């Protein structure tokens, strides 16, 4: 299962879901789906998120054994 730190890092930089969404060109809902683990983003979107949140992709997303 894909886990992520999007919510934690977004809070650290003080972004709302809408603000983060705008920076990576997706809707607020998509950011919410990612944070809840409901949706696994594409590599392109993962790279964009990592860039905005200033971390390596591997530090933002990782696989966890079920």
């Amino acid at each position: 299962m894909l886990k992520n730190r999007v919510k934690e890092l977004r809070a650290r930089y003080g972004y709302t879901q809408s603000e983060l969404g705008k920076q990576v060109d997706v809707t607020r809902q998509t950011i919410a789906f990612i944070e809840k683990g409901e949706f696994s983003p594409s590599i392109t979107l993962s790279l964009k998120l990592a860039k905005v949140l200033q971390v390596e992709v591997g530090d933002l997303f990782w696989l966890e054994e079920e």
Partner: protein
Amino acid sequence: MKQDFRMTYPLWNMAFILILAVMAVGFTSSLVNVTKTDSSLSIETQAVEGFLLFAALIAYLVLITIYLIALQSYNRKNPGKKISPFSMRPPEYMEQDEGMTFITRKAVQKVYTFITWTLPFFALIVMLFPIPRLFIVWGILAVAFGQNLIYYMEMRRHLKEAAE
């Protein structure tokens, strides 16, 4: 997102289907007599069926007027994502980005599963039993209603979760 016309689109479809179900009573009644000549078409119905047909036609016209006004208003407010009433592609698909495309796909998969089971089952029932024409029409409309309901509920569930 609540104001997004694409989100409420299945509800419009469901309302139109309900009116069609009432209209079907008038059109499929055995008491309806249709006479066609070279120059005219006359339809005679019994009082109740005739009233239902007339009332449903009026309701349909009223609803389609409200629908077109609402659609025009939405298009004016959202010039970047206009909806055409004549589009072949269902306008309720929400595909602004990959996340929305993902939940739309999930909702469509549920609808597909529903159709896959209900249509053959319905066809079997119609073949096995002498079902009146009205019930067959209602059955088809019920499948269409169910399809819209499933899609709407699934999308609403995802978007409600995203709002929390």
